[in-house]
């Protein structure tokens, strides 16, 4: 029951993230001088001002915490509840909010190992990274 998501805003700082997802890569913004990830993405490193570079991540991570949405509020989600919204920490150490998909919502647990997957959106140039429980 993979859904076709409404496209994220494609003209903002996160565009490379969505474009990479369409190509099957999980790209996150990184500051080389500071050796830190930057998320939510800014145009430049907030600490040193260096332009951020987009690095591909392994796509492996774990569920830091999650909630099961029983009552969706956005119209496109109404028919998809219950679904899982989670904070994922990638193996590289950066955290992002995403969905855990392709399992019963009740199967998701704290600390569960996950692997990235990619969903299409209504914009053929932009994809959406989501996560699946690892076997």
């Amino acid at each position, binding site marked *: 029951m993979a859904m076709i*998501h*409404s*496209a*994220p*805003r494609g003209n*903002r*700082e*996160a565009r490379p*993230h969505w474009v990479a997802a369409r190509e099957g890569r999980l790209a996150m913004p990184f500051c080389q001088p500071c050796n830190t990830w930057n*998320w*939510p*993405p800014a145009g430049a490193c907030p600490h040193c001002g260096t332009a951020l570079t987009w690095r591909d991540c392994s796509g492996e991570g774990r569920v*830091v*915490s*999650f*909630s*099961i*949405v*029983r*009552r*969706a*509020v*956005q119209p*496109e*989600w109404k028919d*998809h509840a219950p*679904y899982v*919204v*989670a*904070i994922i920490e990638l193996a590289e150490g950066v*955290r*992002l*909010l*995403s*969905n855990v998909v392709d399992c019963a*919502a009740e199967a998701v647990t*704290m600390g569960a190992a996950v692997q990235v997957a990619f969903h299409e*959106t209504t914009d053929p140039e932009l994809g*959406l990274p*989501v996560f699946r429980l690892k076997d």
Partner: protein
Amino acid sequence: MTDSAIVGIAELPQGKMPGVTPMGLHSTLARMALADAGLHARDVDAIITLSPRSDPYLIHATALAEFMGIAPPVALTVEGGGAAPAVMTDMARMMIAGGRAKTVLVVSADMPLSVVSRNAYVNTLADAGPVHPDIERPYGPSVPSLFGICARAYMDQYGATDEDLAAAAMHDRRHAMAHPNAHMRQPMTLESYRATQMIADPLRLLDCTPVSDGGAAVVVTSQERARDLRQPLVKVLGAGFCAARLHLSAAASLTDSGAGPSLRDALAQAGRAAADIDLALVYDCFTIALLMNIEALGLAPPGGAGAAFRAGEFNADGRLPLNIHGGLLSHGYPGRAAGISNLVEAVVQLRGQAGDRQLKRVETTLTHGMGGVFATHGTLLLGKG
């Protein structure tokens, strides 16, 4: 700081207000607060409002002045989330201390229930609320689910259960039942709490605030002038603020609300100690927010707020009376104006005008407000004159 006093307050019963318009509500509250202070609308030389979701204007405060037929030189509409009551009161203090204004009218009201509708209001929160429009919105997080993520992390870290969440909800409800202006006044038990539907695990319907029409107005002037007015003196002793980030995706911790520095700075400005506080009104848009904010403010040990509620420590006759007006959870959640009732209850108690609810000893009060998902905090300390 040459300090200020709150000399007028007004609040109406929170809930559904059929036949009332948002501007009519603002104007009524403003005139009630001025009458409470023994002042006239023409005395107002600065007006501060929030932009209600139910009734946006280019400059809402100026539109209110026009509606009331006054023309104060300063009219500001601020954006401060749930920390706005402290923001607006502190702006009033600074204008008074700096000589910009003598009588500042603060009006914070909204009508999400009657004018926007409950469902439409909840929908606007998902679009223009604390959800990041780029990196979070595509994943369909509801506002309860963002707090649900924090609640599950909190339960995991401390071994807390739904009984801790329910203890906060039941505390607020029990006290709201005794407050004539509270929105939610039917009894709540652990069984009736558990019988309500799950909204965003682990948060149930009764972990969330209602949506209410309501708000309040407050009049601020100098302490010197306040002594000549009609109400018992209520001083603004100190204010403190803190903000680490806006969105949950940027949060360093899912279980520390981050409110602590706002109280630390308010205490430093007031020259008081935490032990001096004898009434606390803490922002609680969800039960988990109440538990985490109480702990971050140092009013209970980490993971211990639920047990403190169950032990009665926060009851009117407990160690530290807290949210004895029912909190946002049961007193009401008037949209953008949420949290202003915390300020009103503190003033009523400091004046000794709470009737059957009056606490025996109230010298110093803490009122806390929070914007976003544990994003910004504003804390005010008020004291008896």
